[in-house]
């Protein structure tokens, strides 16, 4: 009943002033506002419904599970029962030598991988951006190509390239009179860094190159006029101007590194002696949950890892902002 009434009063005003900041007929304005609210609700509901199911519910469930432990009851008859453990699983995870070692592994991996990969992509981006580079599109595409290859298949390819008998790399090394074991205790970390660098250097190079394209050309020309050579322009002008992109990349790389699973899983399967079944935090969680069925411990470890991921993101953005402010 109200709607036709509003319509007869509304249209002239509503048609001229559809924006509700300019008051038309009050009926038309509220109707439009209600229409917008309804549209917004319809458009965001699917996402948030699914978000609740696959994001919030699992996190809530992990929080709940992390508070309980399985205890074998009585004399070992009748299986196990769940008992409230408070923060017991968290202290168990934090004092677990395997869990702590997994973070040490990732720290060492990052200490090698991040400088190599970030430095490599930055250098390549500067080279592609430099006036001297030819065939820029081809190089960008060629360097980005590994990103089109799923991590699992990239790992399989490289693991075969590390396998004696299959590997042309090892054939080459032997032909030159050398020898190398990609799986040996102290080499395997390098093999892993190489595998990750192969997958991500080009991807980040494209990001850095896009950022370099946004550097105002006048700034660079001014530097050239002042007599700065190509190398100095690159290091003193271009790099500081894309610092925020570099920081973002380091952030994403760290968050990715603490989740690393596929690559160490496959290296472990190949029998690399120093990559054990709980080498990375995710492998530890996998083992605790799916091999030992200690869901409380696995949930606590998952949440600790998530907390670290989120904290890392905050820390690196904060640092990045300060760096940008100082530059």
């Amino acid at each position: 009943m109200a709607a036709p009434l509003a319509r007869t009063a509304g249209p002239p005003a509503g048609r001229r002033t559809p924006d509700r900041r300019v008051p038309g007929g009050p009926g038309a304005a509220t109707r439009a506002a209600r229409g917008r609210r309804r549209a917004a609700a319809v458009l965001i509901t699917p996402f948030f419904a699914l978000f609740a199911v696959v994001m919030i519910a699992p996190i809530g469930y992990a929080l709940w599970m992390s508070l309980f432990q399985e205890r074998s009851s009585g004399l070992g008859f009748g299986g196990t029962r769940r008992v409230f453990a408070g923060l017991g699983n968290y202290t168990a995870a934090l004092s677990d030598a395997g869990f702590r070692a997994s973070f040490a592994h990732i720290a060492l991996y990052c200490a090698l991988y991040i400088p190599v990969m970030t430095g490599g992509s930055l250098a390549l981006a500067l080279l592609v951006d430099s006036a001297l580079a030819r065939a820029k599109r081809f190089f960008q595409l060629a360097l980005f190509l590994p990103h089109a290859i799923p991590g699992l298949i990239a790992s399989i390819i490289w693991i075969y390239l590390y396998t004696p008998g299959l590997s042309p790399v090892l054939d080459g090394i032997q032909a030159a009179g050398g020898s190398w074991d990609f799986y040996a205790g102290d080499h395997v970390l390098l093999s892993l860094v190489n595998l990750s660098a192969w997958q991500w250097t080009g991807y980040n190079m494209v990001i850095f190159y896009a950022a370099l394209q946004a550097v105002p050309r006048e700034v660079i020309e001014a530097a050239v006029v002042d007599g700065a050579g190509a190398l100095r322009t690159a290091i003193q002008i271009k790099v500081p101007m894309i610092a925020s992109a570099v920081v973002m990349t380091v952030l994403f790389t760290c968050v990715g590194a603490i989740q690393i699973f596929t690559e160490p899983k496959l290296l472990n399967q190949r029998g690399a002696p120093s990559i054990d079944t709980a080498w990375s935090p995710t492998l530890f969680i996998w083992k605790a949950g799916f091999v030992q069925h200690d869901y409380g411990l696995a949930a606590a470890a998952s949440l600790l890892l998530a907390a670290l991921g989120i904290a890392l993101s905050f820390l690196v953005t904060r640092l990045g902002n300060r760096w940008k402010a100082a530059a």
Partner: protein
Amino acid sequence: MTTLTHPTDAPAHGSATEGDGATATGRRRAPGSGLLSKAVVNGILAVAACYTLLPVSWLLIAATKNHRDLFATSGFALGDMNLLANLRHLFTFDDGIFLRWLGNSVLYSVVGSALSSLICVATGYAFDKYDFRGKEKLFGLVLGGVLVPSTVIQLPMYLLATKAGVVNTYWALLLPALVNPFGVYLARVFSEGYVPNEVLEAARVDGAGELGAFARIGLPMLAPGFMTIFLFSFTASWNNFFGALVMLNDDHLYPVNLGLFMWNSVTQQQPEYYALVITGSLVAVLPLIAAFVCLQRFWRSGLTAGAVK
């Protein structure tokens, strides 16, 4: 001014300066810039391109070899041409299960990502174009979702899925693939850039409903953004090996990734599986490479929007 209007002039301009420096004026050059001759720059880039391309070419060559040549000939040398036989073996092995895996991957990745991108675009558009209570708080929740490492929720998701009875079904991989918080963030950025508010106002004046305006005006204008988000979620779900490993037991539901992983895990005991894994990897990778080459401008714009902010 000329260099501003013709950015492609930059190379010529640059190399001219380099040339001058070496010959006529001999003016102050930064130490080390002599290292950056055209040959050196392009040489380094060529070496880097070899590094990224050679493993893939090895895969291509290895897929043409029979089992004996795979181990007997050197990696980049051609053996007997055996590609067709390898392909036939791949697609007939175990009643053609590989084809089924490819189909599953398409379902998880193509269908899942198309739906997911549509959901993202609708949500991002609503965040950009409408004001509603708690909007920025909800958006903060989305950004929080970007920060949560995806592998971390896999175990509780598995346990919840067990209770709901969806573990080891298509839904176990499809449902999580539908949620892409980063896509919502991108969609909001794209909506700000691609859909002018004036156009929507004009549509409202013409009497279009809000949802009609989204479907007929907003969505077509966001098509490039949709493609970018699609590519992002496609890569993520095609790469999602951990999720598949956790959720699926039935090999008829495997995506290609998990199937290849299972084959690869027996290669050391049964080396004849090597040919299957190598040929299978090649077949799984070629369409992706083709897609990335054809859809360059979309992933480029996604990287720029996502990272250079």
